């Protein structure tokens, strides 16, 4: 079927493939009548055909296809497709059920493919953005770590990476410390003007980045001129201050939202009990409240960190060349001198985000357990 398509006549290929499969199915069902043997024959047969026609990669494709066809034939024949469904469904409903599943599968593939495509391409030995014939043959020659080497030795990339590692943590610390305090204040009853305050605090998330960047561009260049001119600060240092402040503001809404969500389930009588036993407010906070809301604080911090680490529009407008961050470098790389090193960086960042996702998920579970909500 695929072979036919590969020769340039897709329709004919599909028809031949379907006829072949029908024949195969007829043979299996009437002659062989032993599922396991039939399955192995198909898998190995298709694999061998693939090996003969197009090397190792085709063999793997053939093996997978063989497995699928064998499974599919018996799945249809034995009516296994009905096994997990309600017995009274009509044929059309069953068909609909599986069509729906296949559609959803396609959408999930759409969601995940771009990320999956980047990973192998980053090991490309050529400076191409596409799969080379060597790569498709799974030839070790076709793969190399040279783009990673480039990332770790190229000054430009290293400097931007370092800048990201300086700016993001400082911005995160600012937004987490201020944000947590404010979230605790907001979660108390009887705060006058609560909605208005909340609206202002999460506005950095609402306003489109390009507008925040525009506003900050005008304002921070004035501030920067003041700091450099009047206070005589170092230009480089002022640049960092500007970017850190801008990023801290952008991260605040995430801290506020996650921490207030954690505080919703917080039992206020615990702090009262602590106060009752003679602990001061500071001690109560660090000994009682902080450990309980820590998961929320950390995941808010992670959100703030990723916001700053991933941010490019604002830094593009507010920062100068010496504050070039990793996303900025990627952005210019994508726009101007496009180099495959970007894919290596992308892969590193994907691994990084998987780690972050895992952390946040674990923290969420822990927080739910601590608050006595049902563990999912």
């Amino acid at each position, binding site marked *: 079927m695929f072979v036919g398509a590969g020769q340039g006549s897709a329709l004919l290929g599909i028809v031949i493939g379907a006829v072949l499969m029908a024949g195969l199915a007829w043979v299996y069902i009437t002659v062989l009548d032993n599922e396991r043997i039939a399955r192995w024959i198909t898998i190995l047969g298709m694999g061998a055909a693939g090996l003969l026609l197009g090397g190792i990669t085709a063999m793997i494709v053939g093996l997978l296809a063989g497995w699928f066809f064998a499974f599919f034939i018996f799945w249809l024949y034995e009516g296994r497709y009905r096994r997990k469904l309600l017995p009274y469904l009509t044929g059309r409903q069953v068909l609909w059920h599986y069509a729906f599943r296949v559609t959803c599968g396609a959408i999930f593939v759409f969601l995940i493919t771009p990320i999956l495509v980047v990973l192998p391409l980053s090991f490309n030995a050529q400076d191409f953005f596409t799969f080379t014939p060597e790569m498709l043959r799974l030839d070790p020659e076709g793969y190399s770590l040279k783009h990673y080497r480039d990332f770790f030795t190229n000054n430009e990339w290293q400097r931007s990476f370092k800048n990201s590692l300086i700016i993001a943590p400082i911005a995160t610390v600012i937004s987490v410390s201020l944000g947590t305090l*404010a979230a605790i204040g907001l979660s108390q009853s009887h705060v006058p003007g609560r909605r208005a305050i909340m609206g202002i605090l999460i506005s950095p998330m609402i306003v489109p980045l390009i507008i925040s960047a525009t506003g900050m561009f005008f304002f921070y260049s004035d501030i920067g001129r003041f700091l450099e001119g009047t206070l005589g600060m170092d230009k480089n240092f002022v640049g960092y201050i500007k970017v850190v402040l801008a990023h801290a503001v952008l991260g605040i809404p995430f801290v506020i939202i996650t921490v207030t969500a954690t505080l919703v389930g917080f039992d206020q009588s615990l702090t009262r009990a602590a106060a009752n036993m003679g602990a001061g407010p500071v001690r109560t906070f660090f000994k009682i409240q902080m450990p309980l809301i820590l998961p929320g604080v950390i995941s808010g911090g992670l959100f703030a960190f990723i916001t700053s680490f991933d941010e490019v529009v604002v830094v593009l407008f507010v920062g100068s060349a010496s504050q070039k961050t990793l996303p900025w470098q990627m952005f210019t790389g994508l726009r101007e001198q496009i180099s495959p090193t970007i894919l290596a960086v992308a892969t590193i960042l994907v691994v990084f985000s998987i780690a972050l996702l895992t952390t946040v998920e674990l923290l969420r579970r822990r927080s739910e357990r601590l608050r006595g909500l049902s563990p999912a």
Partner: protein
Amino acid sequence: MTDATQSGPMLAADGTPLKKSLARSLRRRKLRALALIAPLLLFVLLSFVIPIVSMLFRSVENSIVSETLPLTVIELQHWDAESGELPDEALYAAFTKDMVAAVEAKQHTRLGTRLNYEQTGMSSMFRKSGRQIKRLDVEADAPFKEKLIDIHDGWGDVETWKVIKTHAVPITNGYFLNAVDMRRTPEGAQSQPEDKQILIKLFGRTLFMSLVITGSCILLAYPISYLLANLPMRVSNLLMILVLLPFWTSLLVRTSAWKVMLQQQGVINETLVWLGLVADDARLVIINNQIGTIIAMTHILLPFMVLPMYSVMQTIPETYTRAAKSMGATNWTTFWRIYFPQSIPGIGAGSILVFILSIGYYITPEIVGGTKGVFISNRIAYHISSSLNWGLAAALGTILLAVVLLLYWVYDKIVGIDNVKLG
């Protein structure tokens, strides 16, 4: 309570009336809460709200003309622009005086750039005449009218003075008029010449493409949210990873992935050619145009649609649909009359979120959009970094901000800002 009514107001331990004592402690708690909020509130106000407000001001602020040419502006008030005659000698004298001072302070090129937004050619006119006007002596070389016209023909053109007069006001609506393809003229607001009308079209395109992106997000997100909400917890948690992983991956990683996939020599085209579905010389053009932007942004914003839909669909009880079916409804009726209406809040929340996000997007259109697939935000960035027409950039930003805030107000009415959830 009976005690209190019999023996006057109830007293706290220290002898003050209980009501007063309670009120005091309440007040103290309020103050403490506010004290906790205050540092952050100040921080956000200073480093975020003020910049935005200053941007709003910048979109109407126009003091440059009256600051650079103070005497001329006064004289211009006596001149009747409608008469079609050139101004008198007094104005030329005032203008020369202003220009000499401006050239001294190196301000005249800035003014030229500013006026160049309104009428092309102004910038070079100011720059060229600046050099020669500098040599004139304010006292000795009068009269100036002939001399100035000798220096540059433009000073003998009524249009030049009309432009200066029109834009001499300190607060102008000129930038906003420019932002909607109009311009400020002595006769009031008029529309720009045909070849300069691009911004309205760009606004229209931004809205249209945001709508298309929102629509395709709804189409793609609805089935998978339904699936996720109806599968057993264990399976749906696993599948949820496929939604959350793109959500957590860096925006630039996803954008570069799409750039790699959509190129002429990219993964999608290569695969299609290999399969024989597309001829080698007729590769699909799916990057640097609207299709590229729509595909990439639909992918990037899809999680923002799935998450609210999923959380709404989870709360729809299965018993409702079963009840409908047991009363004889067909599958379609059950879905359309029972399930769908209950899932509308999720669709609403998700689509407003996606629409708001997409309308202000900059990075992805810039990289995969080429020239035909860019948004209004790319135009703002262009005016800030390349053409340096900051007033127009601020005006465009203000309009965009107004649209977004309006949408958020709607979002707040439907969902409530407090209900924003992450992850």
